[in-house]
């Protein structure tokens, strides 16, 4: 696995978020605002979000990197780097 397009990653994020917060409207997400300010998710939901991303993208997201997934923009950038370095 190498690089994935921005759109692909964004869709993966919306998929994973939709699984934990079904009422989420992906069109209403402001990319540079913290996701947790826009979607009602707690730490349990967030862990499930990470697990789901792991399933979709096949990459491991260590706990210390959780802060990188704060906003949609930062999450896409982080996941792009992560996917590129993952063999």
């Amino acid at each position, binding site marked *: 696995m190498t690089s994935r397009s921005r759109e692909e990653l964004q869709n993966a994020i919306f998929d994973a978020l939709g699984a934990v*917060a*079904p*009422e989420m409207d992906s069109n209403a997400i402001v990319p540079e605002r913290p996701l947790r300010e826009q979607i*009602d998710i*707690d*730490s*349990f939901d967030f*862990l499930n979000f*990470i*697990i789901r991303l*792991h399933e979709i993208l096949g990459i*491991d*997201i*260590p*706990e*210390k990197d959780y802060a990188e997934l704060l906003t949609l923009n930062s999450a896409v950038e982080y996941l792009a780097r992560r996917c590129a370095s993952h063999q």
Partner: protein
Amino acid sequence: MEAGTLVEWLVKPGDEVQRGQVVAVVETQKGAVDVEIWEAGTVDKLVVETGKKVPVGELLALLRVAGESAAEIPEIPEIPEIPEIPETPGMPGVTRIETAPTIAATGSPRVETAPVYMATSARLRISPSARKLAEELGVDIASVQTAEPGAVISRADIERAAQAKTKTMSPATTKAAAPDWHAQMRIAIAAAMSRSKREIPHYYLATDIDMSAVSAWLVAENLKRDVAQRLLPVVPCMKAVALALREVPELNGFWIDGALRPSAAVHLGMAIAMRGGGLVAPAIHDADKKSLDQLMADLRDLITRVRSGRLRSSEMSDPTVTFTNLGEQGVEGVFGVIYPPQVAIIGLGKITERPWVEDGAVVVRKVATATLAADHRASDGHRGGLFLAALGRLLQEPERLR
């Protein structure tokens, strides 16, 4: 709660049942509840008829487990109807009033009426399974007519209402008539919390706890773990709360009829927010005896089922104390409202980096504010303080919380 009225059987003789399956609905003083069965097998005989009032612990039905033939089941003596149940000492969720010891001695599997306390259905007079069905069928519970005036709404009533509705309603109006589950939950919460503030003389304590050790331990532990096996920070705290409660037992139990009934078991009610508003606090049973992995698995299972509306009667009825982890949402401290007849609620605030004085020097530490709201009828501030001290002490040695 000492007695309940059997409202509805959901199984009949010959039916195969699974462990955890809802087999009957019982109306109690605290609302209607689903009764689960704790063994798999085949229903052999329904002993109690619909509409009968039975004491807690009464034999409701006989179950044949695999390899057991019907002939092995002893004859059941006629069970007299019990019009009024005398007050008996004991705790809800723990005590069983055994009225048929001879049957119990034979070892026949039994279905028991579960003693319950269930705010979510209090005063609604509808069984949880009927409510779920109503939700599925889009039936407005408020408009459902029961067979007899004032009776508990049963699944059959919902089915009748749904049939009537499909005959009379156009598809356009069907959606608008969907029951407002959240409005009902607000009513139930309002009732329980109003009673709490009316009856329970709360006292409140707070203390800051150094969470550096447990946070560092958790980081190291989760680093070793696969993403799906990671522990949430609340999990070691749950264990520490449960263990600390064993040291101050007057915070763990119930206030009933003017007396404290402490519980030997620690069934930790976890306050879990519902998506879109409302909350429930179902039990993690024997939290003091479980490993962190088991607690995490139980919590995961519980939250998942809370969010999908599939809780079990035992989980709703059994909590001996409540733990709220509102810090999760960013608040530094939470002073809870006790869920009657419990006698305490423990709160944990957000873990933040704060200045901390140690050996005369100011250092930066991860700190959380732990709080206790307790019933002053059952305990005093001194004992409450000892509980928070024990909690703080236990959290300094996370490796021992396993």
